[in-house]
């Protein structure tokens, strides 16, 4: 076995894992706090990508800078969806939630189709083609930057959840809804913020990958499924879990591409998912779900 290939595969897997991690972190927050299955997650990410595209082409802002704006706009989108739609069905059975979010996903995907058209897009950035070579190995600068920002954002989110008042309220509401109500938390407001932040994360993720990942309106569904995979494997409601889950899934897929046929690499992550579901449903880093 060509060791260079394996080594490069590992490196690629780690770097791309940053992308996966960021996608999963937002979803983990939403599910952890509200137990809402956000099937529109991938479509919100795609919208983050389109916003980045518009900002790059109309205002000339590089996506590695504009991701902040994208995050803010998708935060608003998430908050809006939560306030007007999800709020009404927080108590509803899972099936209903899924149906609602599917409806939202359909609307998001097709509004994007109507506005932007079906062609694949990619945002231009000077980092897109930049590479750094170390002997036979190379590092994709765009992915490195995304990886770096992903770690940064996850760290910021961690600080927010554990060091700020609002963050603690969110965690309290997640751990014990009733208890949080009792002590006077405006749970609804907490939910809106949490959903918004979750959406903002994935919106930022979208902007950060838009420089090297082609996207179309229809890209949302597979992004949602991937996010769910990662969150389950890493652990629902666990930031660390989502982060490492992303790395693990990405490395597993990359090794799958190296050792098996590339078109089979997705079987690796689904098989991993099944194993986790069976033997450790809380995920590798998750807390025990009640």
């Amino acid at each position, binding site marked *: 076995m060509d060791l260079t*290939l394996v080594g*490069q595969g590992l490196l*690629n897997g780690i770097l791309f894992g940053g992308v996966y991690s960021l996608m999963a972190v937002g979803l983990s927050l939403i599910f952890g706090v509200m137990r809402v299955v956000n099937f529109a997650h991938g479509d919100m990410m795609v919208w983050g990508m389109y916003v980045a595209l518009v900002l790059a082409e109309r205002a000339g802002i590089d996506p590695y800078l504009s991701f902040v704006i994208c995050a803010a706009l998708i935060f608003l989108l998430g908050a809006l969806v939560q306030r007007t739609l999800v709020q009404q069905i927080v108590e509803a059975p899972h099936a209903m939630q899924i149906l609602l979010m599917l409806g939202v996903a359909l609307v998001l995907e097709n509004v994007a189709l109507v506005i932007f058209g*079906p*062609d*694949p897009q990619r945002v231009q950035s000077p980092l897109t083609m930049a*590479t750094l070579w170390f002997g036979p190995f*190379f590092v994709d600068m765009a992915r490195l930057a995304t990886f770096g920002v992903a770690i940064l954002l996850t760290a910021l989110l961690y600080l927010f959840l554990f060091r700020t008042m609002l963050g603690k309220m969110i965690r309290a509401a997640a751990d014990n809804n009733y208890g949080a109500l009792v002590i006077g938390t405006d749970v609804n407001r907490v939910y809106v913020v949490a959903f918004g932040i979750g959406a903002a994360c994935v919106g930022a993720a979208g902007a950060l990958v838009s420089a090297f990942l*082609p996207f*179309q309106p229809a890209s949302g569904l597979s992004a949602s499924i991937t996010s769910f995979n990662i969150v389950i494997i890493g652990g629902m409601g666990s930031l660390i879990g989502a982060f490492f889950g992303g790395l693990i899934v990405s490395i597993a897929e990359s090794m799958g591409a190296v050792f098996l046929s590339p078109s089979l690499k997705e079987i690796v992550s689904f098989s991993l998912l099944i194993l986790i579901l069976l033997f450790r449903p809380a995920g590798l880093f998750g807390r025990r779900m009640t």
Partner: protein
Amino acid sequence: MDDHTNARQLNRRTFLKTAGAVAGTAALGLPTLLRAQAPTVKIGVITPVTGPLAEVGQLQRLGAQMAVEAINAAGGIKSMGGAKLDLILADTETKHDVARTEMERVINAGAQLVMGGFHSGSVSAMAPVAQQRRVPYIIDISAADAPTHSVAQAVREGKQKVQYVYRIFPSSSIFGKLAVKYMTEIFRETKTSPKRVVVTYTNDAFGKPQAASFVEAAKAANPGWEIVEVIPYPEDAKDLSTEVSRMKALKPDVISPVTRPATAILLLQELAKQRVDLMGIISPGAPGLYEPRQREILRENIEYVMDSTIWHNVKSPRAQKIEEEHIKRTGGKNLGAEAGYGYEAILVMADVLERSKSADPDAIVDAIKKTNFTGGIMMSTGPIRFNEFGDNPNAATAMIQILKNKPIVVWPKDAAQAQVVFPRPKV
């Protein structure tokens, strides 16, 4: 005697057509009672205008619309009293259960001919309806052989009486054979001798057979080069870095990719990033390697890339005029195969109707079988005609190369607009 009969027939046919048109448009709720006075032939255009193949389906539809406008402006079908062509538009949503229902809807609304499909699953679902309802169906784009071949087989075995399904698009094997031929000839012309070719393809309903036919054709032709490895990748791949690392390790002279637009972006970027040393990238026929948005996104990474693909005949003045109109109406997109074949299907239908002089299905099929149409606008090695499978054996491809960020025909020589550049210059 004949004139008398024809006059009566013409009146009856006209009446029926008018009644049909009125009923059809009433059903659709369109305020076209004015149009219902003149004879019309209704043509169903069923393409994927939404869903993952939306970009293609929308262009197919545009091509058909442009052709119908041109023909109607020139006086319609003269042998049928100047009958105008009227389109009934439908959307398969890139799903084949929807395709089948849309076929039924369109026929119910009075379509006397149908074109469209694109995705082989949709085409397969639509073909049986054409057979059951006896509505001639001309497939403008579909590389899958199964729909036409299976109907032809059923007719041969006596299970079906008449073949109503025909295709003007080149079959997979034509793609493969011509790609091998063009590549070999280009190598000879540029006095180069690449030896190692790596094939990579999107593992979907288009990529797989396309790659397979290229590999087969190469084996049969036994040229001076050989395919050393075939590497598939998933159609929704978000990352091709490992696949490209594998390709690089094989030290290829040429990479032959069968891509889709999204994966084409990933692949070409990755090949450049990993500094894979190549004499050239030559596709045996794939989308994503010549469209304006792709060229805009990929810029220098798409320069010198070649694609042996369906293209319009650049030397035809008619095709050139159509391209100008196409660029205007799409906001800058070059005439591609999608709109090109959509347009050509209508041209073929108009020619068929001129000869059948009627919208009767069997008369149309008769005329289709005798087709020998030289007014086409797409690349071909002869006039458009239909063989025993219902396919067009003269459909052909052209080798285009991106030069100065424009798609230019470089082979065959008599259709070429410029000199082919191979090997590509080193960066």
